[in-house]
C-alpha cells in the first residue's frame, strides 16, 4: 500500500510537469493551430533563469520568480512576433510554421548555451526539499507545490476558457480566425496572448521542477516531446484532455520504472501510443481534430 502511494506520488509529480507542458501546447494550438516546438524550452528558460536571478544575482525567491516569469513572457512574445506572425502573414503552411518554432527552440538552446554553458546546474528551490511524512508516505513540499500549481492552473484555465468572455474569444479564434475577426475579435492579439500565457506557464513549471530535475540547456526538447505524447494520448481538443494524458504518462512511467527499469518506460509508452494509433488512427481525440490542418 505504501509503495503504491509513493508510486502514485512520484507519478503525479512527473505527470504534472508533462501535463503542464501538454496543457500549454494545447493552449497555443487551440488558438493558433500550430504546435509550438519551443514550449519545452520555456521550461528550460524558467529553470535556468531561476539560477540566474536567485543564485547569481542572489535575489530573494519572491522577487526572483516574478523576474523569471517576466523573462519567459518576453521571450514568448518575441517568438510570436518574430517567428509566428511573419510566417502566418506570408501565408506559410502550419507545418512550415512548426519548423519555424523549432528554429526558435534552436535559437533559445543556442543562446542558453552561451549564457549558462553545457553543464547541469543546481536550481535553487522555492520550497523545502526536506522530507515530510504524511500517512506513511514521504514527500517534499517542492514536490507537492508542483502538483498544487498544476491543479491551480487547471482550475484557472478552465475558468478563463469557459466562464469568461475572453475565454470565449480564445475558443472562437481557435475554431476560425477569419470568422472571429469578422465578429470583432482581434485574432492576432488573442494568439499573441496564447503564446505569452504558455510561455509563463512554461517558466513557472521550470522554476518549480528545476530543483528536482536539475537545470540543463538541452532539457527542453525532451519535455516538448513528453508534452506532445500527453497531447496525443489525451487529445489536443482541449487543454484538459492533454493534461489527463500527461498525468497518465507520469503514472505509467513511475510504474514501469518501479517494476522494471526506467529505461523501458519510453519505448513502452511509445509502443502504447503506436498501438492506440493502429486502433484509433486519428488519436483518442477522434477524427475532427486530427484531420484539421
Amino acid at each position, binding site marked *: 500500500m505504501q509503495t503504491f502511494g509513493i508510486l502514485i506520488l512520484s507519478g503525479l509529480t512527473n505527470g504534472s510537469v508533462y501535463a503542464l507542458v501538454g496543457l500549454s501546447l494545447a493552449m497555443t494550438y487551440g488558438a493558433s493551430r500550430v*504546435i509550438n516546438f519551443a514550449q519545452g524550452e520555456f521550461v528550460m528558460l524558467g529553470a535556468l533563469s531561476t539560477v540566474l536571478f536567485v543564485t547569481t544575482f542572489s535575489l530573494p525567491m519572491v522577487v526572483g520568480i516574478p523576474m523569471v516569469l517576466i523573462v519567459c513572457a518576453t521571450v514568448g512574445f518575441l517568438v510570436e512576433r*518574430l*517567428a509566428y506572425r*511573419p*510566417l502566418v502573414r*506570408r501565408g*506559410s503552411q*502550419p*507545418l*512550415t510554421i*512548426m*519548423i*519555424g518554432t*523549432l*528554429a*526558435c*527552440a*534552436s*535559437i*533559445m*538552446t*543556442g*543562446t542558453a*548555451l*552561451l549564457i549558462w554553458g553545457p553543464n547541469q546546474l543546481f536550481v535553487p528551490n522555492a520550497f523545502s526539499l526536506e522530507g515530510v511524512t504524511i500517512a506513511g508516505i514521504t514527500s517534499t513540499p517542492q514536490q507537492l507545490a508542483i502538483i498544487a500549481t498544476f491543479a491551480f492552473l487547471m482550475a484557472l484555465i478552465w475558468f478563463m476558457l469557459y466562464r469568461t468572455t475572453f475565454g470565449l474569444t480564445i475558443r472562437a479564434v481557435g475554431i476560425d480566425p477569419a470568422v472571429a475577426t469578422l465578429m470583432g475579435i482581434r485574432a492576432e492579439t488573442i494568439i499573441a496572448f496564447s503564446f505569452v500565457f504558455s510561455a509563463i506557464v512554461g517558466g513557472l513549471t521550470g522554476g518549480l521542477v528545476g530543483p528536482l530535475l536539475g537545470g540543463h540547456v*538541452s532539457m527542453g*526538447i*525532451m519535455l516538448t*516531446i513528453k508534452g*506532445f*505524447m500527453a497531447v*496525443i494520448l489525451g487529445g489536443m481538443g482541449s487543454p484538459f484532455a492533454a493534461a489527463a494524458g500527461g498525468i497518465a504518462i507520469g503514472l505509467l512511467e513511475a510504474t514501469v520504472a518501479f517494476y522494471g527499469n526506467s*529505461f523501458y518506460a*519510453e*519505448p513502452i509508452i*511509445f509502443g502504447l*501510443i*503506436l*498501438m492506440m*494509433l*493502429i486502433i484509433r*488512427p*486519428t*488519436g483518442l481525440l477522434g477524427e475532427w481534430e*486530427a*484531420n484539421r*490542418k
Partner: protein
Amino acid sequence: MSSTTLRNWLPATVILMIGAVLPWLLQGNFQLRIAMLTWVFAIFGMGFNLLYGIAGQLSLGQQAFFAIGAYTFALLQIHFALSLPLALLGGIVVCAVVGLVIGLPVLRLRTHYLAMATLMFAMIVHDVALRWTDFTGGTSGLRVPPPSLFGARLERIDLYYLVFGLAAAAYCLQIFIKSTHLGRALEAVKTDETAASSVGIDVTRYKVSIFVVAAMFAAVAGIAYALVSRGVDPSYSGIGMVVNLLTLSVVGGLGSRIGPFIGAAIVIIAPQILAGLQEYQTLIYGVGLLVFMIFLPRGIGGSIERSAEGSFDDPKGEKSARRISRAETP
C-alpha cells in the same frame, strides 16, 4: 531536348563535373573530408526532400534511420566480418524494414502528429544508442574498420569517389522517382489526400513506399558518414542532426532538385569558414533557418530553379510576347 529533361539533367551534369574535379582543386585531407561530408548530407537531404518536399509528409525522425544504417553497417563488419558492399546493403535493408514497420502505423497520422511521432521514435533510437552499451558502445560509439573493396584498401581519394558515387546515384534515383507514377501520385497526395484517393491513388501505400525510400536514403547517408568519420556514435541520432537536416533542406529549397546539394554545402562549409563558431552553431542554424523561412521560403535552389524556369518553360516566347505587348500599349 525537352525542357523537363534539360531541367533534370543540366544540374546533374554540373554536379557531376564539380564532383569529379573537386579532389584536384582541394588541398589536404581536411578539405577532402569537408567535400565528402557535403555529399553525405546532400544524400540525407534528398531523402528528406522526397518525403517532405514532394510528398508533404514531415518526418522529424530521419536521423533515426541515419543512425540505424550506420550502426548496422558497423556491427555487421565487426561481428560478422562482412565486406563493405554487403554491410552497406545490410544497413540499407535493415533501415527499409524498420521504415516499413514504423511507417505502417505512423503514417496513419497527419501533419503535426506525424512529425511528433517520428521524433519520438528517433528519441527512443537515440536512447538505445546511448544506453545499450554492450551492443552500441554507449557514448563513445563504435569504430568502423578501415574501408576496403574487393581486398584492396581504400585510400582517402577512393573513399571520396565512393561517397560521391553514392550521391550521384541518389540524385538519379530522386529524378527517377519524381518522373514516375509514384512521384506524381505523391504530389497529388501532398495537395489533397482525399482528392488523390478519389482518383484511385492508394494513399497509404504510396506514403509508406516513400517513407521506406527516404529511410533508405538516410541509411546510405548514415553509412557514408560512418565511413568518412571512421566510426559511429549516438550523436548520429541526436536532435542536432535533425536541425542540420531541416536547415539544409530549407536553405537549399524544399522540393528543389539541386536544393539538397546547395543546402548541404552551406551547412557543412559555413561553420568551417567562420572559425571559432562551433559554440554559436546551434544559435546560427536556428537563426538561419528562421530567416530563410521568412524571407526566402523557396530556398536558394528553389529560387535559382524558378528564375531559370523562365527560359525553360517558355518555348513559345509567351512571356516575352506579353512583355512586348504591355510595352506597346500605353
